[in-house]
């Protein structure tokens, strides 16, 4: 036996409507990619209750996306900050957050992105930040532009930043998108609306935070993130 630890405990059941359905007809690409069969339910063992650890030594932080080689990117400079907690409200310390986004014109530095909007030599659009001991994170970037995506006629994504997080357990893996308060495209976006529950959707929208805003420099936005919690009932050890 490679491991001889006490058996793990499962995860909290997901609350209905707070996570997107795989099959979302208004999001066309799900048609051939969403499984037909229901997944099998399994409490998870050591494999799913443990997960990878990333260190700043091996995965160096890149917390200012708004500058490249000393040059400022085009666009509205922003500060994004918040906390990462679990469903019990407990902070998740020293965890890695990966970030990627389009530039201020709505263009990704990516070979597949053919949108007719300019690339910015001083914006790459990928970042990496670690939470501190209290589960807090912060990074600097520019507000990404909207971009068209051909899902339907005249489809434009609302401004968003992609987030990737790892909890202590592999089953807590979270990939999401942060949106901006007041963006009128949110009402029209099938990806945002793939989440049925309106409150759960609203929690994907970062709020302008004047306390995070730095005078004469950058607007602040707050975005708090919650990772799935562990189940309350330990399985038989």
């Amino acid at each position, binding site marked *: *036996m*490679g491991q001889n630890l006490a*058996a*793990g405990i*499962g995860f*909290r059941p*997901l609350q209905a409507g*707070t*996570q*997107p*359905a*795989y099959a*979302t007809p208004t*999001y066309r690409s*799900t*048609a*051939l*990619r*969403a*499984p*037909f*069969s229901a*997944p*099998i*339910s*399994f409490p998870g*063992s*050591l*494999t*799913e209750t*443990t997960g*990878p650890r990333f260190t700043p030594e091996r995965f160096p932080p890149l917390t200012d996306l708004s500058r490249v080689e000393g040059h400022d990117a085009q666009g509205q400079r922003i500060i994004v900050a918040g906390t990462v907690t679990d*469903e019990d*409200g407990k902070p998740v310390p020293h965890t890695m957050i990966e970030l*990627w986004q389009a530039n201020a014109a709505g263009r*990704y530095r*990516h070979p*597949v*992105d053919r949108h007719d909007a300019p690339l910015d030599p001083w914006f*790459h659009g990928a970042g990496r930040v670690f939470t501190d001991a209290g589960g807090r994170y912060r990074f600097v970037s520019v507000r990404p532009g909207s971009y068209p995506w051909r899902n339907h006629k005249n489809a434009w994504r609302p401004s968003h930043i*992609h987030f*990737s997080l790892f909890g202590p357990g*592999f*089953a807590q*893996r*979270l*990939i*999401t*998108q942060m949106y901006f308060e007041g963006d009128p495209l949110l009402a029209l976006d099938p*990806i*945002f609306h*793939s*989440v049925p529950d309106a409150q*759960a*959707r609203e*929690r994907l929208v970062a709020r302008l935070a004047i306390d995070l805003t730095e005078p004469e420099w950058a607007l602040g936005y707050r975005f708090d993130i*919650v*990772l799935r919690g562990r189940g309350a009932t330990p*399985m*038989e050890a």
Partner: protein
Amino acid sequence: MPSATAQQTIGPYWHLLEDPQVADLTRFGAPGPAITLQGRLFDGAGAPVGDACIELWQADPSPSELFPGFGRSGTNADGWFRFRTLKPGPIRGCGNATEAPHLALAIHARGLTRPLFTRVYFAADALNETDPLLSLIDDRARRATLIAEPDGDHTWRLDIRLQGARETVFIVF
């Protein structure tokens, strides 16, 4: 307390994060015989999925400075993904059950609104017959979607089908 933050698709531009080295879990010099796990990812029309992000995690051998236990492989235009890692041993599961050697996979892609989780077992391992997860799947053909077959020297192959008649078994926790 609020529920977990909603997932949103990884989309087509996640490669901004990609470091191909991360698909090789032996890159820090982990001792022990290495294996290759490879396969192709297909959609419901049988077409290769060329823009997915597949992540691998294993609890055995125990992660260490030399062995991260975690890997990430993109799929190429033909749907191929490929990892290099150490073959896991059995682990202890719930209720003192023994779990057969396996790897965990999370699949992220444009058109997947949230990750799909599955596991990879190894053909001809006697422990497969009593594995607690495999035992939940009565249909032998469905069970086979989680079992990698030998594919040359120290190489294992498992194809993943997102949708349709030969759809892979996915797992929720």
